[in-house]
């Protein structure tokens, strides 16, 4: 579509049909026309960014006739460590030749702000250089805010989605289009505007702009697989970090140190880390079943950890 019009959609009977047709037109049609398509999803923690990214990826995968659940693990980059391998796979693996989407999930909770900033900027530029000429891709990048990418990198992004999730309701996506304001050529500014285009209805084309895009929860199967993989991959990174701290402490303390105490201190630092440890059942919190395996704990270690950790977060 052109500079001022983002889509020209056929008659859609329901809002669901409009949603999937719209996403398909904005993304799949762009890459079919050999144009880059970067979508940057922002929002605070817990606003539904990852599930929104999954919903969009699913629409793109299905547009190419794929079962999203089967390719999801290939399309989602859970941690920066997997990025190179997964991108190479999507670009060159024969069995993934119809997969045209990659989603870089937020991993800010695993890294320092500076490392995350460097990773995101480098990744966007890297994908921009690598995939052109090999395979057109829709790239979805998830991070907390626009400040995580520098100004030059922002210019390579086409769409920005802001996610908000009112309590007790589904997430809402506000999708905007970036455009370059070149009225003053000595001072080109990057601006964003609503998505607009034409929608066929009752035999006529109506000029419309897109308001709210409500994001339904992905199916339970998709959620379960995503949550499980995300937890395992991210825990793996955390485990490595903790092992490094452990070694440093062991060196300083000549082997006499409290491993459980160190784990309690580490994981109770903030809410993001706590979610890797606890799972809520009703009004009670329990330690996740994988935690024992990840940190190589014995049964009594786990019991000790559970007691001390829950006391800590209860403010004891």
């Amino acid at each position, binding site marked *: 579509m052109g500079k001022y019009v983002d889509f020209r959609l056929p008659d859609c009977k329901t*809002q*669901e049909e409009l949603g*999937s047709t719209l996403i398909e037109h904005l993304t799949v049609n762009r890459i079919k026309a050999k144009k880059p398509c970067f979508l940057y999803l922002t929002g605070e923690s817990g606003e539904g960014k990852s599930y929104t990214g999954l919903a969009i990826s699913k629409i793109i995968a299905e547009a190419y006739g794929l079962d999203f659940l089967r390719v999801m693990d290939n399309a989602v980059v859970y941690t920066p460590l997997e990025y190179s391998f997964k991108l190479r796979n999507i670009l060159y693996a024969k069995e993934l030749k119809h997969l045209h989407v990659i989603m870089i999930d937020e991993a800010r909770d695993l890294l320092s702000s500076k490392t995350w900033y460097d990773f995101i900027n480098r990744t966007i530029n890297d994908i921009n250089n690598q995939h052109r000429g090999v395979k057109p891709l829709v790239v979805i990048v998830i991070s907390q805010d626009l400040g995580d990418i520098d100004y030059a990198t922002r210019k390579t992004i086409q769409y920005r989605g802001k996610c908000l999730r009112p309590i007790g309701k589904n997430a809402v996506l506000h999708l905007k289009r970036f455009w370059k304001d070149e009225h003053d050529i000595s001072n080109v500014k990057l601006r964003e*505007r*609503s998505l607009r285009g034409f929608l066929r209805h009752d035999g006529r084309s109506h000029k419309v*702009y*897109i308001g*709210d*895009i*409500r994001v339904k929860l992905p199916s339970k199967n998709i959620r379960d697989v995503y949550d499980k993989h995300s937890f395992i991959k991210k825990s793996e990174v955390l485990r490595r970090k903790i092992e490094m701290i452990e070694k440093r402490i062991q060196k300083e303390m000549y082997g006499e140190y409290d491993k459980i105490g160190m784990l309690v201190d580490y994981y109770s630092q903030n809410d993001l880390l706590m979610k890797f440890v606890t799972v809520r059942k009703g009004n009670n919190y329990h330690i996740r079943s994988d935690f024992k395996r990840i940190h190589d704990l014995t049964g009594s270690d786990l019991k000790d950890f559970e007691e001390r950790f829950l006391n800590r977060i209860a403010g004891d």
Partner: protein
Amino acid sequence: MLKPYKKSDDLFSEEDDVDLILQSALNRALGALGKGVEMGNFETGMMVKNLEVDQAVIIAENLGYFSHDDLENFLSGKVDESDDKLISDTKISNLKIGFIISKVQEKKPKRADAII
């Protein structure tokens, strides 16, 4: 003397979602319209003004806000032929701009919500 339109910046903003080229043409035309009247030198003022207004008409027509016949019909019912030539030109230009604005506002895009 006819009153110029209020400053164009107040009429259209980015949020109105008027096509950018038309927005800019209208802003120029409205500016020139006011200026032509202010200048007192009607001949020069009118020339600039009519040129700008005609450009805005052509752009709006091409963008599908109205057809040429719509505009002709509208003007034939509004312009009083007994007016002095210069005043009549100013009036026609004013009417044309007024007509574009009303058509643009009629065609303001509607909001569409979606679910994914």
